[in-house]
């Protein structure tokens, strides 16, 4: 039973500018995004009494509390691993609020992901040569893009998925970025031909298939639905939030074709009292383009093996039947580890996106492979 259903809301969202070289510390960006989110909600920093963060973040709860002039937090928490945290943090914030541990919980992420340490370089690993990675890293399997390539190559083999279908995802998200002035790739449209002639990284994945490493910060505030009703913005209710953890798999074990979306979907949609057909807009965690194709299948938006044709037919574009990543996503807005997808879906449900989906009522957001998802509603 989903006891969280519609009890809490995302009441304010904030960001810094997304750039390739912020020239600022992560703490300074975290403060700016947090202040923007708090002001967006019509609250003051004194109203914030809870805080949750990415374990991977360099900014601690106490540093950000001090940065905001908050003397004391009644609730704090944090979540790893990197790509899996964003939706689970919303679950933690909603749990804390719905159980009276805090009234207004700030969720934040701040990272110099382009000018600082770049995740795509393979230098950020925690178990170099040890435990499971002893069986992958010695073979040169060092960065997440290689794993994504291994997975989609098999999908291509089994279902006839094509590189042009991956290209369709990239071109679509770039088109969305061109509608969104905040996107790093705003004003830089690409064609399928540009895609097909771009630099190959992890064959069959090209540079455009990979998340756009970026500097920036995102934050939002979670409060009770009751309080939200009297706040500045139209409340965006949290109809369901999952925080899941698949057992270690993939890589050198079985499971290349098993992602978490299929496991989460029944509980996620059921708990929100809806079906996939009720979803109007999606924010998928697109660290690499292939996941868009497989997630559409996993969450039940199309049959298994038909994600490629689904995207190639233009069905995930703004204005089409199921718009995905309408801000440009990680591929073309900025790689903010899922936080910018949450913010964009909140904007959609407030009916204030640059690529607005008409009458959007229900939104789906997810985190990295199978680690959490949200159903948000207007």
């Amino acid at each position, binding site marked *: 039973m989903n006891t969280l259903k519609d009890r809490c809301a995302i009441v304010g969202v904030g960001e810094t500018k997304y750039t390739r070289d912020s020239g600022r510390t992560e703490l300074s960006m975290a403060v700016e995004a947090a202040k923007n989110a708090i002001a967006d909600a019509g609250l003051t920093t004194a109203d914030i009494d809870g805080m949750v963060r990415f374990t991977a973040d360099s900014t601690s709860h106490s540093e950000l509390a001090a940065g905001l002039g908050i003397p004391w937090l009644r609730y704090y928490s944090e979540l790893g691993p990197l790509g899996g945290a964003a939706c689970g943090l919303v679950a933690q914030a909603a749990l804390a609020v719905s159980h009276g541990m805090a009234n207004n919980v700030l969720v934040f992420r701040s990272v110099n992901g382009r000018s600082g340490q770049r995740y795509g370089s393979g230098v950020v690993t925690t178990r170099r*040569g040890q435990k499971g990675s002893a*069986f992958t890293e010695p073979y*040169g399997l060092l960065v997440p893009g290689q794993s994504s390539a*291994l*997975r989609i*190559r098999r999908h291509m083999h089994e279902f006839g998925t094509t590189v042009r279908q991956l290209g369709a995802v990239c071109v679509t998200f770039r088109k969305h970025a061109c509608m969104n002035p905040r996107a790093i790739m705003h004003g830089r449209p690409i064609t399928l031909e540009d895609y097909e002639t771009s630099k190959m990284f*992890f*064959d069959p994945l090209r540079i455009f298939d990979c998340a756009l490493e970026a500097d920036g910060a995102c934050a939002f505030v979670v409060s009770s639905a009751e309080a939200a009703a009297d706040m500045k913005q139209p409340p965006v209710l949290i109809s369901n939030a999952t925080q899941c953890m698949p057992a270690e798999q993939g890589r050198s*074990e079985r499971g290349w074709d098993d992602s978490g979306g299929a496991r989460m979907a029944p509980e996620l949609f059921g708990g929100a009292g809806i079906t996939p057909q009720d979803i109007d807009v999606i924010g998928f965690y697109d660290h690499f383009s292939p996941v868009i194709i497989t997630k559409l299948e996993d969450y039940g938006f199309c049959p298994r093996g038909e994600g490629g044709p689904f995207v190639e037919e233009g069905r995930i574009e703004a204005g089409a039947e199921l718009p995905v990543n309408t801000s440009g996503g990680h591929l073309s807005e900025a790689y903010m580890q899922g936080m910018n997808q949450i913010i964009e879906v909140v904007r959609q449900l407030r009916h204030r996106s640059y690529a607005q989906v008409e009458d959007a009522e229900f939104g789906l957001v997810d985190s990295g492979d199978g680690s959490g998802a949200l159903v948000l509603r207007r």
Partner: protein
Amino acid sequence: MTTANFPLPIPNLDNQVFWDNCREHRLVLRRCNDCQESFHPPKPTCPLCSSENLEWVASEGKGKVYTYTITRQPVNPAFRERLPWGIVDVELTEGVHMISNLVDLDPEQIEIGMDVEVVFERVSEEITLPKFRAV
């Protein structure tokens, strides 16, 4: 010595026997005596049924390429001298999967379904890596 710049395995008590056997050019797998399944990488309990009743069994060392990728950009200094770099997921006849590389083959020739067999590549005094070649 082609993998000198990639991280080398640091054996632990759960997989030391695997690496000891590789040094002797034997590929071994963990097999569960309760559910009869083999698995890899080696772990202290069966990932399918959690049993601790495990044994080491010799693998036939034969399988097929299940999937592959070719790295074409030096995303990390370790790749600088060795592009294009092929990585394969081999499905062994025992049903387990193993990440590896194919030796003596232009990466452009890798195909899904290709029959392969294990070979051993000594990379340090302690470590010999199982790799595969097309057959």
